């Protein structure tokens, strides 16, 4: 046990520990639950809520697959089908994929960096409430008869006031405001946490790959999300409700303007979903190969390059609109060259697997599944970057196959791997490896059965977003296979959920570090105490738990009677000052409620924006109102 650093086992005086418990406990009852600002609780809320939306999106997918299983099927009429595919895409992209990654980030990043909370705990709570309210807005509207039906991307003029009357698209547009505010809150707090709250001596070249993933993703959110707010709320919603002419050609507007702004967000969006998953793959591969990932600098550079280049690709969603030749050549080149950033990471992971000592856990199964599915999807992406070919398969099921391969393979499989890998940390118990591996195989088989035939359907001319198709086009067999596969995926999901529920109660108890992993989250208890670490660690290397204890240290001198964290310098993490974080507060929820009232009202009348601003301002004033002066004696 020479490598196991003794400082991990923080023998701390009982009085110190109980004081920390008191300081970091949330109030009791419903009021306490609504006022929580600790990052583990909020992260878990994001994850659970996102998972519920995943299930809803999955049910929508099953409905679509049932309708398409046979030609000329009568299960769903065109209006219902159009609503369902719109809800499916919107739910998966806005209400599941981004929030679940944020939840994992909010939970794990402070633990990995050796601190106790995110930099802005109340902003964290506020962001969650905004996300929840946005999802409720969409689903309550849908269940009461006002569902959007213009696709998850809502192209104009179809989504405009003339061709989509009613409030469905308005609800869609304003829901995006909620989810984007939420994403921007998480991005802001994670960037500041990663730069300013790291454990001493954890210089930037020592932070875990998952934190690099969240850092790159957060910057991408900062630059991409404003675009979707503009597209949905400023362009589309205003054209629909107050008569602006952004996309109205009769008065100088342009329908393609909407597409440009939307895809300027839309392309980075898929990398926003995918890059945290790449960080998870690194974390899992490192822990279960028993070595640090090969080529850390190359991996970091690839992530950063990926983040940058992703902003230069958006027009590849618009190849069919007819573009100048120079633009065509540029966007083809950029869309292909971004493959390099993924390729380098794949090569580095393979190098790590080759030279590590593999432990084939359920989490590693999902990593191998990721490699298979994501690489296949990435290669069809290279094909799609080629304009002549794209013009044949654009808006067909070939594209549906492609993006499900890269999103499910590239984001969902790593996420499920992450759930199995961090389950002991989240719950304090081991998840059943057998059931995890079974879930993997069912999901893997079901996924490929569902989506591989879609490549063929696209080549055979089956366009997207159609509620039915004629029998003589011979699309029935592949569609039936896809439907069967979809139900197999559902079974895999059920096995996973059952595993989680069973293992939470009956799984073997886990200690701090059941995997003998190297990063700091495994130094905290399983599940972590709300203050994470009784003493902030001083790290001596990139993998603190694999570094000899003589090179590590502990921070002393912080007060335990208030929620203190240590602020360190951005590059080398030299301690600079202590920061007193707020305790529980109801103001984030109140502010979110105020904003929600105003934003929902703005769907009906523009003046409700002023009410939103007023209520939001009252909320922020209450939030920041200085109650007690901070005791400045140390």
């Amino acid at each position, binding site marked *: 046990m020479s490598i196991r650093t*003794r400082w991990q086992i923080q023998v701390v005086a009982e009085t110190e520990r109980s004081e920390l418990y008191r300081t970091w406990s949330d109030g009791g009852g419903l009021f306490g639950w609504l006022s929580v600002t600790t990052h583990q609780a909020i992260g878990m809320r994001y994850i659970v809520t996102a998972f519920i939306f995943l299930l809803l999106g999955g049910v929508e997918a099953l409905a679509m697959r049932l309708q398409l299983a046979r030609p000329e099927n009568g299960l769903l009429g065109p209006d219902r089908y159009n609503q369902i595919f719109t809800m499916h895409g919107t739910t998966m992209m806005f209400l599941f994929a981004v929030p679940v990654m944020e939840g994992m980030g909010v939970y794990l990043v402070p633990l990995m960096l050796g601190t106790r909370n995110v930099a802005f705990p109340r902003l964290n709570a506020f962001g969650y409430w905004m996300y929840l309210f946005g999802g409720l807005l969409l689903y309550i509207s849908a269940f009461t008869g006002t569902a959007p039906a213009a696709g998850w991307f809502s192209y104009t003029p179809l989504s405009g006031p003339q061709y989509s009357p009613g409030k469905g698209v308005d609800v869609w547009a304003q829901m995006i405001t909620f989810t984007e505010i939420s994403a921007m809150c998480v991005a802001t707090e994670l960037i500041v946490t990663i730069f300013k709250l790291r454990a001493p001596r954890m210089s930037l070249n020592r932070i875990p790959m998952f934190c690099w993933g969240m850092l790159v993703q957060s910057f991408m959110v900062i630059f991409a999300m404003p675009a979707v707010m503009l597209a949905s709320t400023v362009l589309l919603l205003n054209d629909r409700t107050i008569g*602006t002419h*952004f996309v109205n050609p009769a*008065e100088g507007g342009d329908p393609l303007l909407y597409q440009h702004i939307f895809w300027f967000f839309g392309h980075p969006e898929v990398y926003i979903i995918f890059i945290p998953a790449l960080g998870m793959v690194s974390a899992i591969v490192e822990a279960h190969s028993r070595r640090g990932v090969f080529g850390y600098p190359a991996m970091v550079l690839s992530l950063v390059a990926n983040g940058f280049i992703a902003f230069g690709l958006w027009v590849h969603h618009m190849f069919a609109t007819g573009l100048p030749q120079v633009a065509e050549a540029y966007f083809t080149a950029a869309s292909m060259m971004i493959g390099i950033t993924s390729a380098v990471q794949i090569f580095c992971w393979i190098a790590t697997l080759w030279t590590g000592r593999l432990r084939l856990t359920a989490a590693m199964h999902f990593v191998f599944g990721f490699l298979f599915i994501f690489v296949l999807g990435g290669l069809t992406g290279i094909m799609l970057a080629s304009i002549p070919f794209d013009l044949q398969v654009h808006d067909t099921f070939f594209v549906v196959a492609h993006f499900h391969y890269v999103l499910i393979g590239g984001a969902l499989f790593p996420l499920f791997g992450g759930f199995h890998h961090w389950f002991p940390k989240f719950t304090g118990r081991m998840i059943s490896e057998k059931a995890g591996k079974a879930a993997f195989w069912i999901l893997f088989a079901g996924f490929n059965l569902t989506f591989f035939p879609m490549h063929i359907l696209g080549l055979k001319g089956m366009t997207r977003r159609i509620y039915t198709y004629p029998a003589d086009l011979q699309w029935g067999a592949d569609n039936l296979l896809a439907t069967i596969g979809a139900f197999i995926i559902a079974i895999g999901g059920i096995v996973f959920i059952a595993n989680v529920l069973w293992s939470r109660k009956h799984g073997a108890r886990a200690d701090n570090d059941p995997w003998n992993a190297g990063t700091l989250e495994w130094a905290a208890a399983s599940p972590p105490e709300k203050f994470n670490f009784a003493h902030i660690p001083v790290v001596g290397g990139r993998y603190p738990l694999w570094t000899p204890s003589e090179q590590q240290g502990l921070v002393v001198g912080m007060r335990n009677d208030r929620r*203190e964290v240590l602020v360190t310098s951005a590059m080398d993490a030299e301690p600079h000052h202590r920061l*007193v974080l707020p305790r529980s507060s109801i103001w984030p929820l109140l502010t979110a409620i105020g904003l929600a009232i105003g934003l929902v009202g703005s769907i009906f009348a523009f003046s409700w924006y002023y009410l939103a601003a007023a209520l939001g*301002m009252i909320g922020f004033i209450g939030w920041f109102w*200085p109650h007690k002066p901070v005791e*400045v004696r140390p």
Partner: protein
Amino acid sequence: MTPSNTLDVAALPPYSISSKAPLWWGQILLCVIEGSMFCMLIAIYFYLRLGVDVWPPPGARTPGVATSSIALVPLLASALGSYWASEAAKKDDRRGMILGLALNLALACLFLLFRYLTWSGLNFNWASNAYGTIVWSILFLHTFDLVADLLFTLVLLVIVAAGRSGPKPRLGVHVDSVVWYFLVGIWLPLYAVLVWGPRVVGVSQ
């Protein structure tokens, strides 16, 4: 406790009124978010311009050069008030904070008066045509942000004047100056686009 390597941080202060404070960084990021929205609005202005032959549409009065340009004076000066307050916050100078914030607010209100004059001088609105849409959108978003921050600054002034000037309000004043510098700074390219844009890239019939 077993390890001999301990790092004692008891001597470090429990706050920092400087650009090293996390709140300062957070505010910068919020300004980056807002700034990218404004940059996209500028891009939209030129995109719409390229889509038509005549810009602005015939008969549309562009924002007045005189009122818009004179207005820059109180705007830039208000940033000085903000700077004064921010420096006073660092030094825990309550009087300096109050005077700086008051100056900032007074000049901001003067700027808003000019803004009102410019805006009311337009003979089109957001629903007239695409030109009207983008001009009103830019003016509206900037004014909205300005008024919101003005109200916040007013609240800070009240808090400091009422005697609560511990580290939290001081940090608030210091960080609020970041927002003000942003709102002043972002107006300069927006002003150039709205006032001078038609004269540089416009085409009349």
